């Protein structure tokens, strides 16, 4: 069990199916070595992943010297005041609580008509430009972008700037100083925006800026987390899900015939695609025993491979196949424990509305290029597509 393998993140998928987890992710607990030579446990078992994520003896704090960084660029982003994803309770809880009411189930449910309008208008524009189109640029990215900009109070007019910088921030192939530069530009942008928003305007950024107990740095760091999370994940889930459905026409037909299946189908797509699949990093604060007698010692780092956990055959029989009628709700695509994705009600609503509207309004949607030519984003920390040329 103590084999040391070198592994790079994101791990390449070339030889396998582009929807399956990278072949380098193996099914047993493995001792791996990261880019800086740091040893780390790679855990893939559903029970282990879930146990670690819900165990407060594991820390998510990037200021811990043992914290495993997947890339040199990430290490450069180590901050005095990290966003709440990178803090433990009680600091994490304090910051997260400021945002929970913005993502209440009821709040998000009330946003559905607005999301539907955004989806319809975006689709109208894409159809208006004529077939073929790039579904990423004309639909999958603008929809969540418009939604999160509205919610945060960030002007959508600036989307080209912050989308370009966000892509650089998550790119594993550019030099660390360029990642840092992208980060600084985004922070500067959000700091300025928060300062001007302070006076009475709406949106989460203004709400945070108006608080006395948050520094400008905390406002910008947490604003950036929401901006990034709101874009990259939902946009990539929308485009990848569309591609998967085009590759599984029987499943798409089933969804067209029974639109009420969309809620479950989105859970299954989240499970099957698990786009945050580079591994969630944690550090053990005490010795902890996991399944099969594996003991992670205090101070040891672990990476939790969500995509492998979500292919657990016991929990999801036939896990390597997409089945939109499966009960997949126990998937870990949003993580688990206190850090489980705050925006998941919003992500669910957006995906359900975007995909069902697409299926309904463009029943003849098809790939406009051979599947082999579809450009996957394998170099970023969130899996997705660069482009998705479609016709209808």
């Amino acid at each position, binding site marked *: 069990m103590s084999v040391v393998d070198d592994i790079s993140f994101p791990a390449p998928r070339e030889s396998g199916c582009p929807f399956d987890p990278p072949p380098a992710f193996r099914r047993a607990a493995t001792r791996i070595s990261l880019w800086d030579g740091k040893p780390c446990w790679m855990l893939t078992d559903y029970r282990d992943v879930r146990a670690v994520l819900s165990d407060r003896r594991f820390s998510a704090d990037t200021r811990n010297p043992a914290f495993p960084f997947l890339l040199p660029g990430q290490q450069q982003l180590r901050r005095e005041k990290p966003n709440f994803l990178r803090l433990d309770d009680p600091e994490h809880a304090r910051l997260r609580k400021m945002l929970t009411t913005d993502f209440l189930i009821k709040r998000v449910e009330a946003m559905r008509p607005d999301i539907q309008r955004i989806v319809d208008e975006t689709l109208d524009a894409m159809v208006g430009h004529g077939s073929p189109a790039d579904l990423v640029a004309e639909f999958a990215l603008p929809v969540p972008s418009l939604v999160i900009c509205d919610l945060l109070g960030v002007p959508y007019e600036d989307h080209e700037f912050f989308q370009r910088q966000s892509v650089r921030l998550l790119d594993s192939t550019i030099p660390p100083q360029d990642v840092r530069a992208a980060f600084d530009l985004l922070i500067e942008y959000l700091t300025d925006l928060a300062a001007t928003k302070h006076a009475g305007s709406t949106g989460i950024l203004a709400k945070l800026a108006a608080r006395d107990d948050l520094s400008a740095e905390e406002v910008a760091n947490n604003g950036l987390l929401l901006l990034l999370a709101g874009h990259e994940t939902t946009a990539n889930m929308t485009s990848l899900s569309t591609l998967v459905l085009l590759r599984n026409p029987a499943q798409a037909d089933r969804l067209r015939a029974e639109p009420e299946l969309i809620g479950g189908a989105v859970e299954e797509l989240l499970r099957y695609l698990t786009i945050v699949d580079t591994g969630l990093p944690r550090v053990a604060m005490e010795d902890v025993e996991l399944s099969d007698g594996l003991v992670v010692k205090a101070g040891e780092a672990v990476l939790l491979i969500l995509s492998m956990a979500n292919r657990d055959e016991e929990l999801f029989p036939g896990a390597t196949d997409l089945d939109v009628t499966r009960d997949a709700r*126990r998937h870990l695509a949003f993580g688990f424990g206190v850090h489980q994705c*705050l925006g*998941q009600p919003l992500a669910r609503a957006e995906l359900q509305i975007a995909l069902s509207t697409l299926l309904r309004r463009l029943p003849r949607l098809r790939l406009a290029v051979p599947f082999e030519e579809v450009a996957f984003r394998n170099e970023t920390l969130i899996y997705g597509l660069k482009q998705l040329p479609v016709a209808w």
Partner: protein
Amino acid sequence: MHVTVDQDRCCSSGQCVLTAPDVFDQSEEDGLVLLLQDRPDPALLPKLRTAAALCPGGAITVAAEQVEEVEA
């Protein structure tokens, strides 16, 4: 059947509200779980078990019946 929630463990994910809206709600002030009824209809047991399993904070406990503690 008896349901309990621990607000200290709740991280306001709303999984419980999505799964069993007759039994759980979220506070409008802070998003924390609110228990609407602690002895719900036994027919809801499967849903409540799902809610407990999905709760990322481990904040929900469902006891199907009072079981006597047996010393091992």
